[in-house]
């Protein structure tokens, strides 16, 4: 006989929501980090060209 836990689907849905929030949140953080680093790099390069 299979065991049935109370509110088991609440925990299952919570686990998948946490997974997607974790992976999705970190992906968004990485996209923003890359964009900011690209802008910093372009700014530093432009100021270097201005001096030379």
């Amino acid at each position, binding site marked *: *006989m*299979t*065991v*049935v*836990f*109370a*509110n*088991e*689907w609440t*925990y*299952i849905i*919570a*686990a*998948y929501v*946490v*997974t997607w929030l*974790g*992976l999705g949140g*970190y*992906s968004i953080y*990485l*996209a923003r*980090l*890359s964009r900011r*680093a*690209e802008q*910093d*790099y*372009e*700014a*530093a*390069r432009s*100021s*270097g*060209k*201005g*001096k*030379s």
Partner: protein
Amino acid sequence: MTDMNLGQGAGADVAIPPKRAWLGLVSLLAIAGTQWWAVSNSAPDRDMGNLQKIMYVHVPAAWTAFIAFFIVLVASAMYLWKREEKFDLVAASAAEVGAVLTALTLALGSIWGRPTWGTWWTWDARLTSTAILLLIYIGYLALRAATDDAERRARWSAAVGILGAINVPIVYMSVRWWRTLHQVQSSPSTISSTYVDGLRLNALSMTLVLVWLILARYRAACLQRAAETASENAALGGRV
């Protein structure tokens, strides 16, 4: 602005890799598809009921965190041997992704533990050793953030990265070395054959996500390093 242009002016011994947005899309579609397939095709377990379905996210997160820390170990050793900055940046990227996956593993284990063990947390050997692993790599990232000199930062973090990875086999074997509340490792050899395909597919798709996240973090790290180098060169007279 193209990736080629970014790479040319980097100044450090690292080339900036391309964006690979397609890999992100493919890996997220793959993980969504394999999760859907596993959840909708797995019958309730005799002891765990439908809670067994949490295995398809908890176990792949733990496995891929271990893979990330193995990459930290190899890249750190390669840095100490070759002294090439790209190895330091690979190690740092894998360490950050590994820490995120370890935190996710602990959160998912906690959600699974509440209905099955009756508690969100217990000082069990597996849980405690995993928490220590996470703290080690948070320390690794804090050390990097606190050290300005690039060469010293790379050397010190390589040492911590190697020492931290030693904890991985301890975490893995903790359920056999000590009497724990946590069950033995979930793998195709220890779970019912009914669940093997779902676990394998989700482990593969999570590995794809791991590869994409490490590559994306590595690209961001290369860009940050290139920006630092360009700023230093600009300050020294425009030799970018």
